[in-house]
Structure formats: structure tokens, C-alpha cells
């Protein structure tokens, strides 16, 4: 098991007003993303727990690309990973941002 957290600056705050959302499940090749609006609105924090060790560089690249595309300012993402591929990680992160914009 490997844990790490990645902190980024965000161009602008994420949309919506929802405080919390969750997407995905922890299964083989899948992951869950818990997203909470709890950090300063020009920052983004991603905390990762993964069963696949030694992929820090790939996580860095995926998260940097995600922050660049979606500018999820103010959001903290907590990830439990079951060995998901990078494209699945990108998809779940995008779904998490989208869910925070949905009215509740």
C-alpha cells in the first residue's frame, strides 16, 4: 500500500455549491473518489491510497492534467484505489467535479 498527497494551485474555484460527493467503488481496476469542499478556493488537494506501488510519476501526471483541465479550486479529493488505469482515474476525477456542480 502506498499513500501520498498532491497539492496544486487552481486558476479558479470549482463550480457548484455542494459540500461533498462520492463516485466509484474500490474494486479491481476501479477506485472511489470522495470529494469535499474544504480547502482554500485557489487550491486543490488530492490524497491517494493505492495498492499499486511505484506509480507516483503516473499519478503526478494524471492529477496535473486534471487540475489543468478542470481547475477544481477549493476541493479536496480522497482516493482509495484498487489498481485503476490512468484513464479510469481521470474519468472518476472528472465525474467527481461534475457531481459537485449538481444541485442537491
Amino acid at each position, binding site marked *: *500500500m502506498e499513500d501520498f498527497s498532491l497539492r496544486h494551485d487552481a486558476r479558479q474555484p470549482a463550480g457548484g455549491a455542494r459540500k*461533498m460527493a*462520492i463516485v466509484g*467503488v*474500490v*474494486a479491481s481496476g*476501479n477506485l*472511489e473518489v*470522495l470529494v*469535499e469542499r474544504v480547502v482554500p478556493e485557489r487550491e486543490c488537494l488530492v490524497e491517494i*491510497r*493505492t*495498492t499499486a506501488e511505484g506509480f507516483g510519476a503516473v499519478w503526478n501526471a494524471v492529477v496535473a492534467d486534471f487540475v489543468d483541465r478542470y481547475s477544481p479550486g477549493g476541493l479536496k479529493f*480522497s482516493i*482509495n*484505489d*484498487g489498481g485503476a488505469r490512468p484513464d479510469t482515474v481521470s*474519468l472518476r476525477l*472528472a*465525474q467527481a467535479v*461534475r457531481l459537485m456542480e449538481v444541485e*442537491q
Partner: protein
Amino acid sequence: MSTTSMQAAIAPAALTSWYEASARTRVRLLLDPESFMEFVGPEKREVSPHLKVFDLPEQFDDGILVGHGSLGGSSVLIAAQEGSFMGGAFGEVHGAKLTGLLRAARDIGSMPVLILFDTGGVRLQEANAGELAIAEIMRAVIEARSAGAKVIGLIGGRAGCYGGGGLIAGCCSALAVSEQGRIAVSGPEVIETNRGVEEFDSRDRALVWRTMGGKHRRLLGAADAFVDDTIQAFRDAALVLLEQVGGFELSTLTNEQVRLEARLRDFGSCADAVDIWTAEGVADAGAVPALPVNQFIAVADHVRRISHDTR
């Protein structure tokens, strides 16, 4: 990009497969819109204390969500297992969440509980804690029912309802099952391992489905309602069962004992589920596994009316 999943997320209950849906989707589409309020949600991070010992990944809700919502305008308590996380298995925290929900139902006394089973049984990495959880939940189901709460089980997920989950299901006031919903205690491979392939060939999928699948459980009277594999069908069945289920008295249990004794007497010598269906009076028992849902429901209603003074 994510359009497909977003469309699935807003698809109405009638178009969404129960079998394929996640626990959270089932709860959202089963209950009245926007009525679900979760207890001990994922943001509390009440994860398993045992999995890290095995270097296994945790899930923030430990594979079950519990909470409160409304169904047809009436308040209900609800629990839903996520079959994709470790086979929906019961661990310490997972079990404690369901026990707590049932004890709340006992204390309230009138609010029904819906349990959306999707489980292979005890999570063996947490063996003793998981086994204890099953015992606590069974007691809590009976206490809730004794206090006046109806406990309805809904079964149609990928993991089925096995092991301790099958025992808990047996304690419920009523069960609704789809064709995909298997109910048993020992799974096919466990039976084969312990009793030999002559007793049960776990690779014979047709045998597994006609022995443990929803159609057989409905024809045996173990499940009270048989439904199509949509969230809407389960919602409709839950509403009907909540209306039909009677009280829980000593006579309920004695009637249930009589029902089970009669079942053993009538079918105890049958070697296969098809023999049981034939003995029950199904005209073409061999055709049952292939019957479409509506035709099967008509056959089942004809041969076995469910008595609501048992269980």
C-alpha cells in the same frame, strides 16, 4: 467523455438494471427523489480496522450505506450493500452500521427497514468480527420486528445473498427477488468442496441457477415476490410488501414452523429443483428457467400463493 455515465446517473428507475447498478444508485432511484439522508457517510471515514493488516484497500463507507428516506411518501430506514467492494462481505464496521440501523428501527418501533442485500457473506479477513456481526444483525432484525418494524429484504445484485447474508434474509418479514438474485447459505463451490462433486457440481451453471436462483426461491415460498430486474420493479414490490406483511407474533413463528415442516415433508425426497416444481403442480416444470418474467409470475401466483401469517 463522461456523458454515458451521466446519462445512466439520471436514467429513470424503470430503465435501470438493479443487477448492474451500484448500491448508491439503487438507493437513489428506489426512494422518493432527493429523500435519502445518509448516517455515518463516507466523509466520516469509518473504515475497516482490519484490512490494513492484510495490505488491502479500504472503502470510506466499508461497503454499505445506511440512512433514512421516504418511499411512497412514508418514512423508511434503508441499508444497501455494495457487492463490488469485497463481494459485499460483512466486516466489523459494515456489520455495525446495519446493526445500528436495526436498533434504531427497534427504538422507533413503527418505521420499516429495507435491506438491499448484495453479499457473499462474512469478510473472512475479519472472520470473528464478521461472524459476530451476523449474529448481532440477526438478533437486531428480530428485535426490530418484535417492536413492530417490518424488515423487507431486496435481492438481485451481482454477489447474490450468501453465507450470513442468507441467514439474515431468512429472519426478514418478507423478501423480493429477481431472477438474478440468488439466495443460499453455502455457495456452490463451498458445497462441492465439502460434499463432493457428486453432491453439487459448481461448474454446472444451470444447476446453480435453478437451485439458488430467484425463480426457485419464489416457487419454494422463500421469497414473497418475484420482480423484473429494474429498480422500479423493486420499488413497486417493496411498496406492496409493506402493505401486505402482517404483524410479528408467536403465532407467526409457529405458522412458519408448520410451513417449513410441510415443505420438508412434501419435497424432502426430491433430487432436483425441477422435481419440486413438478410436485407443486407446475405443468411444464422443465420450461421454468427459460420463462420470461411476466409468464413466470403468472405461473408462480397460480401454484404458490404467499401466506402472510408466516415468517
